[in-house]
Structure formats: structure tokens, C-alpha cells
């Protein structure tokens, strides 16, 4: 099994490789904004758990814009933002699990994405494009 650090490393890798974003560790405490998306990806395999990523809604829009090659300022469907936030979580979770080199296959659930208006109390663990994101890893077995 692995630590939260390896999950955040995977998130940074995905952000930089596919979303043209800049990821950096958190040096000082940064508050989470109230308007966020929560992304949950459950996995089963050699072990079972859930990766939960909470990111500012503005960051989700930035990532969607960069990924899809949309011009800044152009209108983006909220459904597309949520879809891509889920795909971001899926890629991060898959990259992390692949990095572990386990001998058994993992199955990932369809990402669950929901607006999260109560993220202000969550601890940020890293920055992407200078915006805080919160990550939790819930290992169940």
C-alpha cells in the first residue's frame, strides 16, 4: 500500500502532463475556497479504497479549458467541467495505482463528481496553478 504523498505525486504528474498545469507542494497553509468540486474514485484490487479530491471550481474550469484547448473566456458547459473533473480524478487514481506495481489488476469506479460548498474546513495539501486542493486517501482493506 502507499501513502498520501504518492497519490499527490500522481495528481501532480497528471496535472502537468495532460492539463498543462503547474503543481507544487504546499509550503504554508492556504484556505480552501467555499466553491469547489468533490471527486471520488473508488477502487478495488490488491486493496480497496477511495481517493477523494476536492478542488476549487475555478481550477476545474482552468483544467477543462487547458485540456480541451478552449480559448480562455469561451463558455464551457458545467456538465463538461464536471465530466473532466471526474476524468482528472480517474487519471490521477489510475496513475497512482499503476505506479505501485501491484501484481493484481485494480478496477476503478466511475468517478463521482459533485459541487462541494463546504470545502472551507478541509486541509489543502498541494497547489495546482496556485490554487489549493485537498486530497484524502481512505484505504478500507
Amino acid at each position, binding site marked *: 500500500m502507499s501513502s498520501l504523498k504518492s497519490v499527490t505525486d500522481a495528481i501532480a504528474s497528471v496535472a502537468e502532463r*495532460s492539463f498543462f498545469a503547474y503543481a507544487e507542494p504546499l509550503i504554508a497553509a492556504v484556505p480552501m475556497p467555499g466553491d469547489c468540486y468533490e471527486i471520488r474514485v473508488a477502487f478495488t484490487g490488491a486493496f480497496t479504497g477511495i481517493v477523494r479530491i476536492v478542488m476549487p471550481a475555478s481550477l476545474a474550469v482552468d483544467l477543462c479549458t487547458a485540456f480541451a484547448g478552449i480559448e480562455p473566456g469561451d463558455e464551457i458547459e458545467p456538465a463538461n467541467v464536471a465530466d473532466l473533473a*471526474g476524468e482528472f480524478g480517474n487519471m490521477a*487514481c489510475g496513475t497512482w495505482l499503476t505506479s505501485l506495481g501491484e501484481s493484481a489488476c485494480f478496477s476503478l469506479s466511475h468517478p463521482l463528481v459533485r459541487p462541494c460548498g463546504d470545502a472551507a474546513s478541509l486541509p489543502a495539501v498541494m497547489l495546482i496553478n496556485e490554487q489549493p486542493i485537498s486530497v484524502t486517501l481512505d484505504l478500507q482493506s
Partner: protein
Amino acid sequence: MEATSPFNILIVDDSTMMRAMIKRAVKLSGVEVGTIHEAGNGQEALEILEQHRIGALFTDINMPVMTGTELLRQVAARGWTHIISVIVSTDGSSARREEVRDLDVRLYVEKPFAPEAIRDVLAEVCH
């Protein structure tokens, strides 16, 4: 089935945006292809495969309703050997690659990928 056989492509992924990204990468590749079809899961993909002549199938693994692995099993069971199968998945583990080894998968692209990866895949499967 269509009378003529341009190199049609089917992209299978439960993410609308990921399908759009792959489609864009295909168009940017400069490789001449026919119609680009899309499906949100393996079941939808099978329905398209039964109606259209598809040259290359780009499929995700983890999808609701029917996974990419099951889709490839169905393709093999139907004897559609003319279809070139390419997996595009976050799961690049050796265990997963081993699982699909017998399903005639030509190439395996790990997400996240650069658009050039799709171009390289197309260049290989179109020749």
C-alpha cells in the same frame, strides 16, 4: 455495413471530454481517416460495430455497463479480426496488460497522454 471501407474509427470512453480529446488528437494527427464514431461504454460500442465497418477501436477499460475488456472479448467472440484494437486507459499496470494479452490488442496508450501519442498510434495502425 457501408459499401466502401474508409478507415473508420470508434472511440469508446465514458468521459465525453476524453472522447473529444482523442477525436481532436485524431484530427490534428494529419492521418486520413473516415468517420469517427463515439460510444460511452462497451455496449454502445458493440451496437455501432454491428452497424458500421470500423477499422480501429480506441477503448477505455473502466466504464459502466460494459468494460473495455468485456468489449474486446465480445469483439474476439464475433470474429471481427479486421478491427485493430487500441486500449487508452489510466491503468497501465502489467497485470492489466497481461489480462488483455490474448484479446488481440495492437497497442496500449496510457492516460494521461500527449496528442502525439495518438498520432503515433494512428500512423502505425493505418499502415
